């Protein structure tokens, strides 16, 4: 077996390249090595390659949404075995600390996100042939036999994030939900919305293809190029605004839009990646409007089992938003297409099965 493997790494800002790097080895008895078959490109990967999140340098490996087959396990791995087909949570957690007991995995001392740099634990990315998975018993979940890799890969981050935006946003039956940003995560939130019994779901964006995709999934499209989205949302919500708003972009303009469409007493769930942005309104303004704010790092560990079931029983069909399936070797092109909105959701295949 060769000692090196392919990996998608940061190139000059805004770009990636594929290069050979050493294959990972087991470092801790709770590790597993997974042979990656399918790795998805996520919107947050674009934040990384554009260096919005500091600390990542040229040559660092990206990727946190992946499916593969267990190649090797450490001595202390109890519930997983080589040969099993698995999907990983985008971040490991220990499963037994105080935070984990409260399902607040974000503050587990073992929290680190694959391929997201030193600010997030410096764990190598998974757009590779092989990846080291810490705390394998917690981090990995086996995939039902008949489910495709392409469906399962969504449960490791993006589908769980979309679902959690609605769940933690406290969506109730009959609610009007507005999603700012109709990219892949916004589209998946539209897909999940009927599970929460919503009355109507709006998708706000500037990109016609994305609005079309959201509409095909059941959203009322709101084209922000044609006018102030708040006019459209208030017109269609008895002048009240949306009960729950998902900010699914991760920038100041999207935050501003979110606050402009939420109703008095409503909730803004921030599922986009934010780093150093300012609030769009003052604390006092927020208080006067009684807007509840939920910053969300998607939590696959809590939701993936439910999501795998919902996919298995046909209630969710995340793979339908995949526009391109490409070889890992073509990652540079894939990123470019995704960045320029020429691709909706891209999965990279390693060629392994």
């Amino acid at each position, binding site marked *: 077996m060769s000692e090196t493997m392919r990996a998608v790494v940061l190139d000059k800002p805004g770009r990636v390249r594929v290069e050979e790097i050493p294959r990972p080895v087991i470092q801790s008895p709770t590790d597993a090595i997974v042979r990656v078959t399918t790795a998805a490109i996520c919107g947050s990967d674009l934040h990384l390659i554009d260096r919005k999140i500091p600390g990542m340098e040229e040559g660092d490996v990206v990727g946190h949404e992946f499916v593969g087959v267990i190649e090797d396990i450490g001595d202390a791995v109890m519930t997983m075995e080589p040969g099993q087909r698995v999907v990983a949570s985008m971040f490991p957690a220990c499963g037994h600390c105080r935070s984990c007991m409260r399902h607040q995995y974000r503050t587990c001392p073992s929290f680190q996100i694959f391929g997201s740099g030193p600010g997030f634990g410096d764990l190598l990315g998974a757009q590779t042939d092989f990846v080291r998975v810490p705390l394998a018993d917690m981090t990995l979940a086996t995939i039902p036999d008949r489910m495709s890799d392409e469906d399962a890969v969504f449960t490791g981050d993006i589908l769980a994030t979309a679902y959690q935006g609605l769940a933690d946003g406290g969506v109730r039956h009959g609610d009007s939900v507005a999603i700012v940003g109709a990219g892949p995560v916004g589209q998946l939130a539209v897909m999940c919305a009927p599970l929460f019994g919503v009355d109507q779901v709006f998708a706000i964006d500037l990109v016609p293809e994305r609005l079309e995709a959201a509409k095909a999934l059941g959203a009322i499209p709101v084209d922000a190029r044609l006018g102030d989205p708040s006019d459209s949302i208030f017109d269609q919500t008895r002048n009240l605004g949306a009960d729950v708003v998902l900010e699914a972009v991760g920038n100041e303009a999207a935050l501003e839009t979110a606050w402009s469409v939420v109703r*008095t*007493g409503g909730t803004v769930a921030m599922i986009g990646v934010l780093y150093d942005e300012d609030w769009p309104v003052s604390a006092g*303004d927020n208080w*006067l409007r009684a807007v509840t704010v939920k910053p969300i790092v998607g939590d696959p560990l809590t939701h993936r089992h439910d999501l795998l079931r919902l996919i298995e029983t046909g209630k969710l069909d995340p793979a339908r938003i995949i526009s391109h399936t490409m070889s890992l070797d073509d990652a540079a092109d894939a990123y470019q297409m995704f960045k320029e909105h020429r691709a909706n959701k891209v999965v990279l295949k390693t060629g392994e099965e």
Partner: protein
Amino acid sequence: MTSYTNSDDVYTYIGGIFRDATADVDLGPKLAASGVILKLDYSNPDAVLVVDFPQGKVYVGDEGDALKPNITLYMTTDLAHSYWLGRVNAASALAKGQARAKGSIPKILKLAALAKPLFPRYEASLRAAGLDHLVDGADAK
């Protein structure tokens, strides 16, 4: 409901109370200090006013089109009229969807509070013009 039947009257009386407010020796400087350029977009009858508090100017119809308001309020002319008669709770009108606001909620509520001393003058201006029916026939909102 008895209310305005044409936009000219809206500009005369509601516009008038804004002109009065901006020119007031006591109130004018406080309003100017708010930095607010307020656009009022009324419906039924349709009427548009833009009040430039820092400059102390009131524009009606399309006169204010070139200005860039930092607060815009949308409501029926009836609601605006009831507000000036002191019969509307501004915060609850927004929460109930009777009015729609764009811009800073704290500033809007502050302006609403500053306006309170003007309510009797608004009523007096209508009565002075012989429009008592607009006062006596108007409902509380």
